[in-house]
């Protein structure tokens, strides 16, 4: 792979992006399993909407299944965003400023989308 064009320095970006995706997947799976197990054990049904951000932590503290399920869904939605952050930071560290700026632009667009969800 060292013969590949411009590839070796970029390997760090791939390695870190993979790490974030794997952590995100494992976290999602663990939260989802915990939520489903709690729902089955306590006879709690699945809610019909995801709670606002401010209600998720109290639900987790109370051990309610919906807290874990809501957090699993949000973790899935946020994992690609975390990957973009990682890519932007790593590209900047590698001196690839132009592509770091492109990644930052993507991040700003995603944050705008998340901003809409705060106005519920």
């Amino acid at each position, binding site marked *: 792979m060292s013969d*590949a064009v411009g590839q070796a320095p970029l390997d760090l970006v791939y390695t870190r992006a993979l790490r974030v995706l794997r952590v995100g997947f494992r976290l*999602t799976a663990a939260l989802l399993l915990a939520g489903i197990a709690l729902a089955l054990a306590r006879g709690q049904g699945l809610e019909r909407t995801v709670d606002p951000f401010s209600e998720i932590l109290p639900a987790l503290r109370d051990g309610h299944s919906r807290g874990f399920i809501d957090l699993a869904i949000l973790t899935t939605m946020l*994992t*690609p965003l975390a990957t973009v952050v990682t*890519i932007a930071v790593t590209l900047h560290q590698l001196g690839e400023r*132009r592509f770091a700026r492109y990644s930052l632009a993507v991040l700003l667009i995603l944050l705008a989308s998340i901003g809409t969800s705060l106005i519920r």
Partner: protein
Amino acid sequence: MDILRLIELGLVSAATALVGSMLGLGGGVFLVPILTLFFDVNQKVAIGASSVAVATNSILGSTVHLESRFTNLRFAMLLQIATASGALVGATVGVWAPERPINVLFGLVLLYAAGSMAIRRKSVEMAPDTPDPHGIKASFVDPATKQLVTYVPQRLRLGLGISGLAGALSGMLGVGGGVVQVPAMNILMKVPVKAAAGTSSFMVGVTAVATSFVYYSRERIDPAVVVPAMVGVFVGAQAGSRLTRRVSANKLSAYFVIVLLYLSISLLVKAAGYSLPGQS
């Protein structure tokens, strides 16, 4: 919602993820029409669920493509500006739009998907001294031939326009966008099929973030639909990646062109105010 319905939703999601991963289409193209036509799920809720399922599928699928270096990350980040912008606008329009025009649009997209499956993907040969003014040249080792494949995506402006369109469709319909982007990357931008699929697989997850939070803000993310969809995707995508090695994708494509045409006609009929037998 009763347990039997949850299991049915999970099985349907698993099946769409399995087929989607084998055909390179993504499951949203099948999932949204099936949820609305056969399970009477509200269209916006189905799109919200599909966007989360697409994100889940992307997280799983893109790890494989990133490991193989099929994903061109520089190229992806550049195109993603257009795709994510399109998705944000598309989702904002789509979450408020009436059902009927969305059904018409989806029906047309399914027709396009059926047509694009019938077109043979092109192998790409590139001269070693092809200029790379945008710094998006990339390479990967093709596991089938063990050869190093190097390419420079062409027609970047056209690619950005198509990416914006793919993002808008993703936002309005809950599909991944790959159904538009992969053929465009391969045929118009001269990106090898594996790199196009790998790059798109990564991009659809990022695009789904822009879409899903807009639907979350309108309370269109329903855990009773999303949870079985996520579980189904976990199972179906894993099974699909194993079956791909054993089953001919070309034979499968022929069958699923028919399925896509059926779903397309169903949505267009529904938009006209009618429904086919067995559909809601």
